[in-house]
């Protein structure tokens, strides 16, 4: 069940990342994709009736697989790093072009490039 939810969230994230023009929404979609991946990885370590992989004294019950949980930590930290850096780049673009619309930013950049190529005609 959790895996299906993860795939749905991943799909929503990819669609939003490709189709939405707003850069901040694109970043949110990237965060959603990351959260979906984490949910998927943690869910594949689950077993029926399993508990958290922490050993208590005299406890021999079924526990979840700890390996995906340990690997997911890297995904969380890298996601934080990517989002923080990407947010800085978005802030710089917004300060320069006064919009978060990716297509308008591209148009402005193309216009600037044209202006530089044909000076004082």
């Amino acid at each position: 069940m959790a895996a299906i939810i993860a795939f749905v969230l991943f799909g929503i994230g990819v669609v939003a990342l490709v189709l939405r023009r707003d850069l901040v929404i694109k970043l949110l979609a990237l965060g959603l994709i990351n959260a979906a991946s984490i949910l998927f990885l943690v869910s594949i370590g689950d077993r029926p009736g399993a508990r958290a992989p922490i050993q208590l004294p005299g406890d021999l019950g079924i526990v979840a697989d700890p390996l995906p949980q340990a690997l997911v930590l890297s995904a969380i930290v890298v996601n934080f790093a990517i989002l923080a850096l990407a947010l800085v780049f978005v802030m710089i673009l917004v300060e320069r072009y006064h919009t978060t619309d990716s297509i308008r930013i591209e148009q402005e950049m193309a216009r600037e490039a044209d202006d530089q190529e044909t000076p004082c005609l």
Partner: protein
Amino acid sequence: MTRDRLRIIFAVGIIAAFVGLIGITYICSSPDPADSERYLARAVEETGASNRVAGIYLNYRLLDTLLEVLVFSVAVLGVRHYLQQSEGMKLPNLSESEVVQTAVNFLAPLALLLCTFFAVFGHISPGGGFAAGVIAASGLLYVAIAHGIQAMNAQLNPVRLALMEKVILLVLLAFVLAPAVAGRIPLTELLPTGTPGKLLSGGSILVYNILIAMKVFVGAWAVIAAFAQHRGEL
């Protein structure tokens, strides 16, 4: 000029330490078919940490975790660098109402207490260095929202914090490389494993958790402070 040179030496030192670490590990390690069943069956016994996840990422997969910490440091460095280059908006600084300030004065110490608990008991209960660092940084974020970022920066000097972050990274690297001085393979256990479930168990995991918590706390705060300073307020 000398400061720039010092910085370059510092950066080259950190990069060289990481490259050396990867090289030594590659030469010394023998391939071992470690799968999750083995982790499940023997992780607690081999690492001494009741929390198997902590046992895996701070013992078997310590190199991954170190590179993760390096990625985090690079991100903090990038955020500070690029935000310093652009001008910023400089919004007027407004502090919150007295109700929010009183609530935050009560909540922030609790966040720091929770951070300490998660860092110190991360190897025997749910928690760990990364979570603890983020909790402490969010506690500080409450204070910055309530009392204003200027008041926070007066207490915590951002330049000194950035230096502290790098020093913690170096201490972490030194601790990882320390077994090499004793004639053993780096990344292997330096401290005794102890009895699982006791506070002083899990070998070096306790030390790593505390160091990573400090590192993540300082790094996350450096990012928040850089953003806040750039905008003028939170």
